């Protein structure tokens, strides 16, 4: 099981901030493919992953990163702090 978090418009498009996901995905990209296959709202949120960023256990990472040992994955748009 892995905790998957969504922020900003990704959260709004998917309709929830966080969920636990049972997955055997080996990379972030595999997880994205699994989620996108679930329902249209996921497919819409993940339609263009170049517009998204991902963090693994609260560290910025990349979509080809492995998920082995990861407890928390977060998807969000590019950050706009400051």
């Amino acid at each position: 099981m892995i905790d998957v978090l969504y922020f900003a418009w990704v959260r709004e498009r998917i309709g929830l901030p966080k969920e636990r996901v049972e997955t055997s995905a080996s990379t972030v990209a595999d997880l994205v493919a699994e989620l996108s296959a679930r329902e249209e709202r996921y497919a819409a949120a993940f339609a263009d992953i170049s517009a998204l960023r991902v963090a693994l256990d609260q560290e910025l990472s990349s979509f080809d990163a492995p998920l082995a040992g990861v407890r928390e994955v977060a998807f969000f748009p590019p950050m706009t702090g400051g």
Partner: protein
Amino acid sequence: MSVRVQPEPFDAGAELTAFSAIASGAGAIVSFTGVVRDTEARLSAMEIEHYPGMTESAIAKIVAEARDRWSLTEAMVIHRHGRLAVAEPIMMVATASPHRADAFAAAEFLMDYLKSRAPFWKKEIAADGASWVAAKDEDEDALARWQP
């Protein structure tokens, strides 16, 4: 070194006074305050979402890197989240150093990294609807100049 992520408003003048007291003897203190901008007078508010946990660790990492690169005796970052009114302070950075150039450079570095490497997302609330602020290419470009 102090990092605060908070929904409450803060008084930038009072914060700078307190920071200056802690950093007494440094020689140079630089501060920057970002406020909710509304140059076209169309916003009713700004909402800032963040990633609790990652926000604090990402900012701490940025501050640690600034300390590695410049001679800093103190540094402070305050960043708000939640609903903010127009013209309210969003965030503040302050740096103290024996050298003016270091204090300026470190403050600018902190600003550039907070903009696109700390997990905050701004949403503009206007009378005709709400929209997420898009990241700008120039924000990413601003980071390039800090690469060795």
